[in-house]
Structure formats: structure tokens, C-alpha cells
């Protein structure tokens, strides 16, 4: 029978279109058949391969940035190339904003924009930038393969050979995801590299997937975002870290985990070889990590606490140390580490017992947000780490124990048992400048109104949080059997903030009796004993010493 529907007859429109552009751009390669383009011709190259209205993935994340290509994109003729739709992980560099200021791009779908948060908010209010959606990294990567597939990818690598094979090394990060999404729907891939070499240490991206190479003669910009100077850790951080180690990690037997970027988690890492060891927890907690290569993990690695570390990105100065510890890090046949943000995000989402993060604001329901009025900062990967993935099916002792304690979700699935990831927020009751961290109304609501979002930008929803840790104690929110009890437990650890002052002392005592709230005293921790003297390292220099000189911090962290 003949179908009534008209049949599609064209199947290679994208291929034809991009072939046409590739031909157009051949005038800029160094010689016929080559992929190499002189950096001075890069702007012209971009004008040839990018057309108005294209979706463009400009690579850049917390660490590695395709900064040269970003600068070139700012300099294309906006009369020729405009109305671009940027689909990129982060808006971090001034050039990422310039692309919008100059009318080259108009629409942005991204994950994280903290370094440019004020400018992004301003551009939105001035109508220079329109935001599609703000995603987590995994969501954005997911949409690369659904409805936000890039037409053109501008990526960064360390080196390339003449065939276009790329070596991305320790900072491989987002490159495989961006290139695969782009190239397998016939898009165009342009890579900036420091240099062209005859033989690469290893091939991270196959040359057939790369169309143009721009050797810029210098490394791409890389931010040492996860380097925390132990000298800046305070006694309060140590107190909260001791509570997490004894009251949560030790209690639940947390083996696999992700740590955020804060000083609280940095303190935990530096207390593993000392305080955790003294509690007899070595071999019982913190053995498998999905985390960037934090220099503050070095003492725990050296003491045999850590069995494995897989990373989203690399960290400047950690390359030689990691290469020398192949039993711990993910090291290629060439001897160098390879990170992969998408894989590590999947691991941090599905395969760990616990996530620990920090935040700026918490409301009475436990919703937390780092959003501040007048700033659009996005989410990054934290919401994927900081949630209990409903698709998880494998069990671990920590996961099972947390599931059994989850009073409010028990019973919804009959007698069936289900576990739970631990999602821990560490927050001091007052932040910098004595601003209250516990609030009646999150600034996220104001930001929603200002920016016209459909929903307030919540980093972690209250129902995902199992534990809230402040200097006052631990609120085991998963053990609460009602929203009213959760609120009381949150207020009980909110200290002298307005919300904390609403706590009923009698109710707090009852929560402590039931083990829902634990103060340092309840945990057997003497507050007066919480001191940075317990840290395994007190400075960047001591981290270098722990590493046997293999960790080479950037100059700005060298105080000696």
C-alpha cells in the first residue's frame, strides 16, 4: 500500500553544507591537504566555517580554556557572522562575554558562569544575551546528543600531529564529548594547539574527527581552580571536618566520594592521615574518589588512605606527581593522566557513597543556593553529585544504611528496600562579613524575578540533602520523619542566625536524644581541640614536601 505521507528524499543536507564550508576554508590551510592554519588567518578561518545562526561549542571549563579561539571569535566580522547560539560548559573568560557584547552571539545554553556572573546578569538585562537554559554539565552534554548538537566546535589541545590527531593530556576534560557530538553529525572541529609534533605521546582524539589545527605557540589558558592553600584553613573548618569524619564518614563507612572545592572539604582531606587515622578509619573510609586532583589529597595518598582517583580535569602542577602514582590515578599507556569530565560526572552521579559540598545560603527546608541577586552563576556539576540518582541499582554498605535511615521515603515502595547516596552540605552559620547563611528567603527567588527564570536556581534541593553540617553540629536530615521535624533539625544547627534563633531548646534537646541532631559534644569532639595543628600540611610548601618534590605548584602559590 502506498503511504499518504510525503517521503523525505534529502539525507545529506548537513554533510553537503559542511563540505561546502570546508572547501571554502581550504584557502587558509598552509598547503593543499594540510589541516594547519596560521594563527594570523584564524579569524578568517572562523568566518569561513561559521555561519550566522550556528550552534557553536567553544571549549572551556573550570580548568582548560580554548582562549585563543575565543579571542578570534570575538574578532570575526559581526556583519558576516552573527546571531550565534553558544552551547558551552562555562562562561568564564572576558572574551566569552565579548562575543555577546559585539553582537556575534545572542543565545547561550551553558552550565556555569561564576567568574563572569555579574556581567552575564547585566548582559541579560540589557538584552545582549538571551539565556536558553542553565544546565548541569551532564545535562548540557546530554543535549549535545539530542537537540543542542554543535555545528562547529572550537576546542583546545596540547599538541597535534599533521594528521590532526590530538593529544589533550591530563586536561582532556570536555574535549572528547564536544568533538564526538559535533563530528558525528558532520559538524566542523577546529583545535588550537601549542604546537605540531611528529609523534604524539598518545592519541586522545582521532585525527579524522578534526578539521583544522591552529598552532598558537603557547599553551592554552588553564586555571588552577582546585588548589587550596592549607594556610587559609581555619579552626572552624577543622571542627566541621572532624564532625564529618567521625559522625558521617566513620559512622556510615563512606568508601567512595566526591568533594567540592571548599575549605571544609580541604580540611577533611588534610585530616585523613592524622585525625581519621587516630580513629582507626584507615582502610574503612575515603578509598575511592571522583574528584579533581586536589593537591590537598597528597598526604592522604602518601599515607595509603586513597586507592583510586578519577578526575573531571587536571590541576596545574600535579602532572608529574600523578604520573608517578599510576596505581592511584588514571594513567594512559604513555604514562600521563587523562581526565574526562563526562565520565567523572557519571561516576560522581551514580557510583559514589557520598558528596560533600558547601553553599552560601540554606532555607528552612534545606534548599541551598549559591545564587546572589544581580549575578547569574549557573550550576556546574554539583547538582549531579549532590543528589540521589533514582536510577541507581547497585548497593554498598553506606548506601544501604542511608536508605534504611531515610524515614520519610520508607513505605512508598512497600516492603522493598532501597539505598541512598549521602549528600552532605557543610556551611558555617555566618559567612564572610557575618552574612547569615541561613535565611528565610533564598536570594535565588530574587534572581528568578530579575532574570525571568521559570524556577529559582536551586543548587541542591532540600529533599536531596541527607546531612547539614555547621559549626553547631550535624543535622541528620534523612532521619527526620516529617517536614516539621526537618525544619526543627535545620534550625537546631543554624546557630545565632535569625532562623537559628527560632529553634526551641526543648525540641533541640529531644532531637539530640534521638540522634537526629548531634553537637560536637554528642560526637565526643572537644571544640577546644579543633585546631589547624591537626592538619597533615599547613602550607603549599608542606604539600610539595609530602609529594617528594613531584608536585610543582604555580608561582602564585609559592610563598617561599
Amino acid at each position, binding site marked *: 500500500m502506498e503511504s499518504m505521507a510525503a517521503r523525505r528524499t534529502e539525507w545529506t543536507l548537513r554533510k553537503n553544507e559542511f563540505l561546502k564550508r570546508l572547501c571554502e576554508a581550504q584557502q587558509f590551510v598552509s598547503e593543499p591537504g594540510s589541516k594547519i592554519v596560521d594563527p594570523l588567518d584564524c579569524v578568517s578561518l572562523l568566518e569561513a566555517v561559521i555561519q550566522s545562526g550556528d550552534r557553536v561549542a567553544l571549549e572551556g571549563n573550570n580548568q582548560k580554556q580554548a582562549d585563543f579561539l575565543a579571542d578570534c571569535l570575538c574578532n570575526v566580522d559581526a556583519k558576516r557572522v552573527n546571531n550565534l547560539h553558544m552551547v558551552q560548559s562555562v562562561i568564564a573568560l572576558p572574551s566569552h562575554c565579548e562575543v555577546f557584547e559585539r553582537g556575534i552571539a545572542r543565545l547561550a545554553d551553558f552550565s556555569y558562569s561564576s567568574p563572569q556572573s555579574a556581567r552575564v546578569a547585566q548582559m541579560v538585562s540589557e538584552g545582549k544575551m538571551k539565556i536558553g537554559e542553565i544546565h548541569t554539565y551532564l545535562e548540557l552534554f546530554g543535549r549535545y546528543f539530542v537537540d543542542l548538537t554543535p555545528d562547529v566546535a572550537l576546542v583546545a589541545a596540547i599538541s597535534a600531529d599533521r594528521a590532526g590527531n590530538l593529544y589533550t593530556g591530563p586536561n582532556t576534560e570536555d574535549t572528547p564529548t564536544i568533538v564526538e557530538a559535533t563530528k558525528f553529525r558532520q559538524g566542523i572541529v577546529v583545535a588550537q594547539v601549542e604546537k605540531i609534533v611528529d609523534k604524539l605521546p598518545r592519541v586522545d582524539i582521532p585525527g579524522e574527527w578534526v578539521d583544522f589545527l591552529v598552532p598558537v605557540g603557547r599553551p592554552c589558558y588553564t586555571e588552577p581552580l582546585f588548589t587550596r592553600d592549607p594556610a587559609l584553613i*581555619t*579552626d*572552624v573548618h577543622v*571542627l566541621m571536618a572532624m564532625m564529618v569524619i567521625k559522625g558521617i564518614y566513620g559512622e556510615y563507612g563512606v568508601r567512595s566520594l566526591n568533594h567540592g572545592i571548599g575549605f571544609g572539604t580541604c580540611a577533611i582531606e588534610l585530616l585523613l592521615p592524622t585525625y581519621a587515622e587516630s580513629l582507626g578509619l584507615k582502610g574503612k573510609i575515603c578509598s575511592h574518589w571522583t574528584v579533581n586532583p586536589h593537591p590537598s589529597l597528597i598526604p592522604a595518598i602518601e599515607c595509603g588512605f586513597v586507592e583510586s582517583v578519577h578526575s573531571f580535569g587536571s590541576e596545574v602542577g600535579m602532572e608529574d606527581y600523578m604520573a608517578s602514582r599510576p596505581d592511584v590515578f588514571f594513567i594512559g599507556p604513555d604514562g600521563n593522566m587523562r581526565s574526562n569530565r563526562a565520565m567523572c560526572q557519571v561516576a560522581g552521579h551514580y557510583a559514589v557513597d557520598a558528596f560533600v559540598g558547601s553553599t552560601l545560603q540554606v532555607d528552612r527546608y534545606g534548599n541551598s543556593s549559591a545564587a546572589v541577586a544581580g549575578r547569574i552563576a549557573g550550576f556546574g556539576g554539583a547538582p549531579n553529585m549532590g543528589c540521589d540518582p533514582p536510577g541507581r541499582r547497585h548497593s554498598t554498605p553506606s548506601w544501604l544504611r542511608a536508605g534504611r535511615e531515610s524515614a520519610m521515603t520508607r513505605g512508598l515502595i512497600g516492603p522493598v528496600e532501597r539505598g541512598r547516596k549521602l549528600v552532605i552540605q557543610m556551611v*558555617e*552559620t*555566618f*559567612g*564572610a*562579613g*557575618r552574612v547569615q547563611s541561613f535565611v528565610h528567603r533564598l536570594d535565588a527567588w530574587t534572581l528568578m524575578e530579575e532574570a525571568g527564570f521559570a524556577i529559582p536556581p536551586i543548587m541542591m534541593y532540600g529533599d536531596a540533602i541527607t546531612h547539614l553540617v*555547621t*559549626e553547631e553540629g550535624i543535622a541528620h536530615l534523612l532521619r527526620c520523619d516529617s517536614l516539621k521535624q526537618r525544619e526543627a533539625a535545620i534550625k537546631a544547627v543554624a*546557630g*545565632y542566625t535569625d532562623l537559628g*534563633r527560632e529553634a526551641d531548646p526543648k525540641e533541640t534537646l529531644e532531637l539530640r536524644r534521638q540522634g537526629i541532631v548531634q553537637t560536637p559534644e554528642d560526637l565526643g569532639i*572537644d*571544640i*577546644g*581541640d*579543633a585546631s589547624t595543628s591537626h592538619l597533615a600540611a599547613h602550607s603549599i610548601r608542606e604539600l610539595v614536601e609530602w609529594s617528594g618534590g613531584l608536585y610543582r605548584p604555580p608561582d602564585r602559590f609559592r610563598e617561599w
Partner: protein
Amino acid sequence: MALERLEFEYTGVPEEKRDGWDYLHVGHVMSGDLEILVERLPAQANVSRIRITTSAVGFGSVWQMVIDEFMATRKVCGCEIWINDDGATPAVVKLRLSQLAREMSVK
């Protein structure tokens, strides 16, 4: 830089016997931190006076609550206490007071 001075007074029951320390010092003055200096008054004294000099203006009521709680739980009596604060959060204040209490009981 504007400084705010606060003063609190507490009356307690004089200690029966006293030994150990006459002066104590914890913490240090740096951004986000504070130092506490304590001098014990003669044995019969039952009034403690706390003088706070702080760079964070407008937090008198929070100071009052933190100090009230400390004096109520530690039963400090007959001391002159000076607190020099450079913007410490209540968390830091409480921690330093706990360190002070520890010093008081150890020495």
C-alpha cells in the same frame, strides 16, 4: 576604621578555691579572628566584666547572645575579659571561647 566598643557585666558566685592561672590568652587579631585576654580578679570578686572592641559594627545583640550562653554554661566568675575582634563570625567566637574554657579548666 570605625570600631565599636561593647561592655557586658555578669555577677556570679565566687569560687571556693582557686589555683592555677592568673592570666590567659587565646586566639589572635587577624581578619576573621579575635583574641581573648583574661585576668582573674582577687578571690572574693563575684563580678566579671567583658569589654569587646570590634571592627564589625552593629552586631551587639549577637555578641550578647554568644557571651550570655558562654557565661551561663561555664560559670565564669570574677574575671576581667578583653576581646579584640577583627570581624570573627559567631562560629569563631564560640570556638575561641571553648578554647578559653579548656585553658581555664586545664591550668
